[in-house]
């Protein structure tokens, strides 16, 4: 650890030290995982790191960051050593931190305060930040990001969504941000681990079409003004920064907005996602900057969000299956476990089949995306399949538990409500 700290001198040092001192790391045996990631970054990014420090101090612009693509040849489902480690760590975090918090968070409709500290301790933002800004992202890691979302969602769907919203905004800024936006915001995220951000894309129209927005943007000198209303904004009341989609002269664009008094929020609890404290936001001549540059692709922006929701749906379906397996083996009827009945057992077999099926589509799309290839068709099909199959698993999960599944004694009813979001939400996260 000392070696690493020496190397990571200067910029970001205080944050790293804080992370390093966390008891949670040891508790969850995450230290090795984090050290490895940081070691990789310090190895590769040491030079750039000190340069950035200088630039920041002089208040100059950073150069526009774009993470390089990965290149691939053979069909390969192996996880890298780092991906394995990340998955194990996230899985453990899911079962030991998220799952125990989930019931109350849903019940009280409050995102638990302590999760912010855990999120800082985990150093989630560092996975999204490029090396030049003290992060560990050396190339596009879309597969790793969706795997992370999937593992976390085994603990809880809503908490994962809330936990990953800031991370997702940083991903989006790193991928799409103009030099101006990156200069202002990436450095801010690197500096302040408590900065919170979220997306405002969804609007309250039936059969919502993310390409036809009622929210409008107008040009106003060197910036833009946003007018309109958004819904299902996760953690919208407490966020400092929003990525807002709006119609600009007939074309859909995404803007970055700082929280200010032109925005009004209204609580808007939904069927699920309760822990994310969803709100409606009203923008009234809200000043905004355009997020993107010449290479901005709104469809890919949406797809990379949808893939995260799909991955979370798979993770939650894994939790449903695990819970149902245990229940069906313990619950007896007519003198033997209900799992001895094909009508029950086949529901569980179908869960296993469709979980694997969903995962294949997500990984294919994510893998294409990080290698710089077109992945829209694959993401489209993944969303379609995940929306249907994850809800089927959600409803079968309640069915297997019967009347017990209908009560809050068991988590299956929460998963049922949360999984419905997979087909509904557009954007909201970003891989």
């Amino acid at each position, binding site marked *: 650890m000392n070696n690493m700290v020496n190397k990571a001198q200067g910029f970001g040092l205080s944050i790293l030290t804080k992370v390093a001192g966390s008891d949670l790391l040891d508790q969850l045996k995450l230290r090795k995982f984090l050290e490895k990631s940081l070691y990789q970054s310090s190895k590769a990014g040491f030079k750039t790191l000190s340069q950035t420090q200088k630039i920041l101090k002089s208040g100059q612009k950073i150069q526009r960051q774009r993470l390089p693509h990965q290149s691939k040849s053979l069909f390969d489902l*192996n996880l890298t050593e780092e991906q394995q480690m990340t998955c194990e760590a996230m899985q453990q975090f899911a079962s030991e931190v998220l799952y125990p918090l989930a019931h109350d968070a849903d019940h009280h409709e409050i995102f638990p305060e302590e999760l912010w500290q855990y999120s800082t301790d985990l150093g989630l933002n560092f996975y999204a930040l490029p090396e030049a800004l003290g992060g560990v992202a050396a190339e596009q890691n879309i597969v790793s990001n969706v795997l992370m979302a999937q593992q976390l969602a085994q603990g809880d769907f809503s908490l994962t969504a809330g936990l990953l919203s800031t991370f997702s905004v940083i991903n989006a800024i790193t991928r799409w941000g103009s030099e101006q936006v990156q200069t202002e915001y990436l450095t801010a995220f690197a500096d302040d681990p408590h900065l919170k951000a979220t997306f405002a894309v969804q609007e309250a129209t039936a059969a919502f079409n993310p390409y036809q927005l009622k929210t409008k943007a107008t040009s106003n000198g060197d910036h833009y003004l946003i007018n309109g209303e958004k819904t299902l904004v996760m953690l919208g009341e407490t966020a400092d920064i929003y990525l807002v989609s709006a119609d600009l002269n007939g074309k859909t664009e995404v803007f970055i907005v700082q929280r200010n008094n032109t925005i009004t929020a209204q609580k808007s609890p939904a069927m699920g996602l309760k822990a994310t404290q969803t709100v409606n936001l009203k923008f009234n001549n809200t000043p905004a900057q355009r997020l993107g540059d010449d290479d901005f692709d709104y469809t890919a922006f949406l797809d990379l969000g949808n893939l995260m929701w799909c991955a979370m749906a798979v993770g939650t379906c894994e939790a449903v299956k695990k819970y149902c397996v245990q229940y069906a083996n313990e619950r007896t009827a007519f003198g033997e476990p209900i799992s001895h009945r094909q009508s029950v057992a086949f529901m569980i*077999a179908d869960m296993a089949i469709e979980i694997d099926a969903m995962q294949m589509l997500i990984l294919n799309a994510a893998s294409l995306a990080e290698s710089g290839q077109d992945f829209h068709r694959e993401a489209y099909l993944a969303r379609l399949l995940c929306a249907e199959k994850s809800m089927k698993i959600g409803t079968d999960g309640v069915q297997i538990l019967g009347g017990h599944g209908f009560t809050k004694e068991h988590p299956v009813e929460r998963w049922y409500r949360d999984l419905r979001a997979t087909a509904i939400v557009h954007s909201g996260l970003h891989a």
Partner: protein
Amino acid sequence: MNLQNPKKFKLLIDQAHEVALNVLRPISRKYDKAEHAYPKELDMLASVVDGMNQGSEGMNAGAAVNKRGDSDESNKNGVNMSTALSIVEMCYGDTGLLLSMPRQGLGNSAIAAVANDEQLQRFHGIWAAMAITEPGCGSDSAAIRTTAIKDGDDYILNGEKIFVTSGERADAVVVWATLDKKLGRAAIKSFVVPKGTPGMKIERLEHKLGIKASDTAAISFIDCRIPAANLLGHAEIDVAKSFAGVMETFDNTRPLVAAMAIGCSKASLERIKEIFKDQLDPEYNTPFLQTSNIAAQIYRMEAEWESARLLMLKAAWMADNRKPNSREASIAKAKAGRIANEITLKCVELAASIGYNEAELLEKWARDSKILDIFEGTQQIQQLIIARRELGKSSSELK
């Protein structure tokens, strides 16, 4: 992580695709009509395939897959995957004709999987069919009643086998028989019975719903004497291992049957997209809720198909990399079998009379696909296998 077809198999896939379009499709309806007629056009094709197989990664049109290989740990895309990929294209041409390809029978897979070196050499180049099912046992292959009794240097087979694909056309049949009925599964062994062996008789050829180009034979064995050296693998009855060994063949062959289902339904899906091209958005830019009902149904089928295709490749990839894949092989077979049947039937429904009429092949593909959810383990058998694994149950608990 990469789930795209490897570039090194592109030529192979393209070749198989051309064969499907130019050799199989033109005779597809002919042999659907002329059930039991031998598709002589395949002889030439089979020679071409044999020639390709001389190379390292050939176009195994059927199922001749060997699990053995080097112990190198690096990621491999091998013969399981190349075979699966070429089967997809061939069945896109015609599933019945793929099943009729000389020297590419399921028996060849069994030989490749369990034969010893001497047997591998002796049976090299033959066309071997597979005989498992009996009138009284289908999915319950442990209940096989055909007997093999040792007599000097020979075994004497007695029993009746049905549903033997290419049973009449093949050079030999790999027959599953029990050395001792009392010992259950462990005593089941497979035997290579050459065509024309006295005591082996083709009783009849079935008339079927689909895959009519492929012959399905019922064969009787009455005091059929074969050399003891034709028993594949080991003769000892090992209660712990033996049947598992026989079942292991399925880990390699189920992904290939899944590949057949992917190919067959690919044909229907492609045709229906052509028919309804005016309703579809080739760029997938219309959000799902904004598409027409027809388009929504087609996109849904496409998503199911893609997921099944990738599950099939996953199972084949695991076999290539010698990762235990029983679970994934069953998942691939279950998913591909059911979606192929669903897709081909739905395409007939969407095309209405055009789909139902023999002027198109859509109705044929809908008949062909049904067997793919039945043979090599029915949908329900796959679900049982998967459920037992998920629930940690034995076959006596979860029946």
